[in-house]
């Protein structure tokens, strides 16, 4: 047998049909659904008189729109159109008989946090969702990627996706990370190195000692941002840590099925002599705590650096950088560590898990915030409950953070959690696009520890100085 990559293996196990021209029907094991990209798909099913092909493999949870304030049970906290979207999901989940975690359920949260938490996401699966950060689930060695609403409808109706195979890209992070450097710094540094289009057409497999050393939470952070590097999916081969994390979750296999699953999962790795179309290698020890300075996730620099000048770039990036700097209100040569911050947002499917909250609490313990406002939005109701149990919530509240309910919140600002024009935010989310967190809002992406450090000092800060 010819050597295969992990991607090849999962792909081959899911091709339900292959046409002569190489167009495949890829079978989908898990379909995650949220309220924003699904109403039109369900409507399409209704109009064509179609059913959901595999309701048992379909899981829905509202997250993008839902308010994260403590009074959200009160319907008045939602705007009319948001409420209509959430109600549409309630109804669609009921009518089509799919698994559902409504807003009132403690397990509700960001779809990419709920899936793994509940054991829906397992190694070797194909996972899709009408959301580009579906790449997150790749941390389990699942082939997971975002799809558009027409494809959501296609998967609902057929449990397959029309696909052509992508190319294989290996991103290796060798050696150990230095203190203060986290999974977020890895994933941002990779995008900084490859550019936001560097992974277009590829599925990335992250490997190397620094990736192996990461917890499952950290691996999810890394894979989450594969899409920001242009790759539809990011993968990490499953290992003992993966199995340990999955074991005992509500929807993970049990008993004899667990043993059978484990046997297969242990074959899910890239063969030594597998073919790679592209290879990128970074040294773990070279990675520093980083922040973004511009309006593209590729605008990444170590916190010790200064704001670049447009002339430092070439091609279309010169104009793009000029536009970014103007939008961000930054001057070339300015020290990044002197950039003042108004707001801190810790949360999102990139960094809204328990380990992220622990990292933030570590920095915030016994300190007070110097920024105008700061919020922590746990990725799920269960993450929130655990943080309360561990005493993290008290640390946040004493420091001056708002302690919110679960949802996407200020990651994309569809609910009232928004920046105002010119407001500068240290965020643990994944996109710093113009207007992403509110019209005119200025976003700097970073790790939870770095965001917490900025909250304490009031400016972008090298977290290593606080350790």
């Amino acid at each position, binding site marked *: 047998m010819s050597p295969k990559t992990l991607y090849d293996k999962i792909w081959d196990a899911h091709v*339900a049909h292959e046409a002569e021209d190489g*167009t495949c029907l890829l*079978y989908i094991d898990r379909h995650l659904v949220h309220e924003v*990209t699904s109403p039109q798909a369900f409507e399409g099913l209704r109009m064509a008189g179609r059913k959901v092909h595999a309701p048992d493999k379909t899981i829905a949870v509202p997250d993008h729109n839902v308010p994260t304030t403590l009074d959200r049970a009160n319907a008045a906290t939602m705007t009319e159109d948001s409420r209509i979207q959430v109600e549409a999901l309630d109804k669609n989940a009921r009518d089509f008989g799919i698994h559902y975690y409504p807003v009132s359920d403690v397990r509700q949260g960001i779809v990419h946090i709920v899936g793994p938490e509940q054991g829906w996401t397992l190694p070797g699966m194909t996972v899709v969702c009408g959301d580009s950060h579906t790449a997150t689930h790749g941390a389990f060695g699942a082939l997971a990627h975002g799809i558009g609403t027409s494809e959501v409808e296609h998967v609902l109706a057929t449990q397959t996706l029309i696909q052509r195979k992508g190319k294989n890209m290996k991103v290796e992070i060798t050696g150990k990370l230095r203190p203060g450097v986290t999974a977020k710094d890895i994933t941002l540094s990779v995008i900084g190195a490859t550019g*936001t289009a560097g992974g277009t057409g590829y599925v990335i497999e992250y490997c190397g000692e620094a990736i192996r050393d990461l917890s499952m939470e950290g691996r999810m952070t890394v894979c989450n941002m594969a899409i920001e590097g242009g790759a539809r999916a990011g993968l990490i081969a499953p290992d003992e840590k993966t199995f340990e994390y999955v074991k005992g979750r509500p929807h993970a296999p049990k008993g004899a099925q667990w043993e*059978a699953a484990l046997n297969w999962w242990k074959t899910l790795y890239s063969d030594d002599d597998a073919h790679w179309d592209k290879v990128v290698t970074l040294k773990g020890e070279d990675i520093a705590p980083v922040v973004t300075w511009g309006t593209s996730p590729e605008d990444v620099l170590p916190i010790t650096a200064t704001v670049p000048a447009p002339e430092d770039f070439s091609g279309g990036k010169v104009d793009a950088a000029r536009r970014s700097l103007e939008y961000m209100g930054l001057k070339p040569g300015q020290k990044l560590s002197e950039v003042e911050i108004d707001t801190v947002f810790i949360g999102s499917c990139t960094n809204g898990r328990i380990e992220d909250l622990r990292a933030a609490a570590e920095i915030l313990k016994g300190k007070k915030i110097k920024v105008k406002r700061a919020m922590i939005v746990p990725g799920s109701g269960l993450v929130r409950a655990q943080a309360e149990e561990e005493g993290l919530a008290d640390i946040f509240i004493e420091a001056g953070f708002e302690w919110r309910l679960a949802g996407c919140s200020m990651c994309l600002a569809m609910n009232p959690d928004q920046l105002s024009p010119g407001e500068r935010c240290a965020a643990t989310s994944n996109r710093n*696009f113009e207007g992403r967190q509110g019209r005119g809002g200025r976003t700097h992406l970073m790790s939870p520890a770095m965001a917490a450090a900025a909250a304490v000092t009031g400016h972008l800060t090298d977290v290593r100085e606080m350790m």
Partner: protein
Amino acid sequence: MEKFEKLSGIAAPLPLINIDTDMIIPKQFLKTIKRSGLGVNLFDEMRYDSEGKEIPDFVLNKPQYRDAQILVAGDNFGCGSSREHAPWAIKDFGIRCVIAPSFADIFYNNCFKNGILPIALPQEQVDVLMKEAEKGANARIEIDLEAQTVSTSEGQIFGFEVDAFKKHCLLEGLDDIGLTLEKAAAIESFEAQAAQARPWV
């Protein structure tokens, strides 16, 4: 789905790289449960000021580009989220074709599901078309999907690549789901075999 065969139209120049889906259609317009009506909010934050008044400098607000059917843009067009609201807004505005040196995967795919043709061409050719587009109504760009060509008003012709299956669906205006359901037997036999091999799924 609406067919796409040939198109001859005015092209609007948008010489920016990394035009992301938040620029194409900001999130406040994702709260709709319909596919239509998003055209007025296409490029909303570049097109209108904070009071909702048109910004006259923005290309689609200029009289000569209000009826543009083609968009010529920079590298990595459509990066960011998977929101199909982006192609819906583009289509609803009246644009049927986007030309750029490269596209983000999900956006590229979403276009074909909505009767929009995304064309990736080498930077030098996009530069030529960008210049053409800057001439406004004085230059129409012609696209022939069957022949896989883009022609300028000056008679320059560029060939482009497109996946044969996607081309076929676009030319015929075919509905993917209908096509896939014709293969229901293959899906069922796959399911039976997978239930044996991986019963825990």
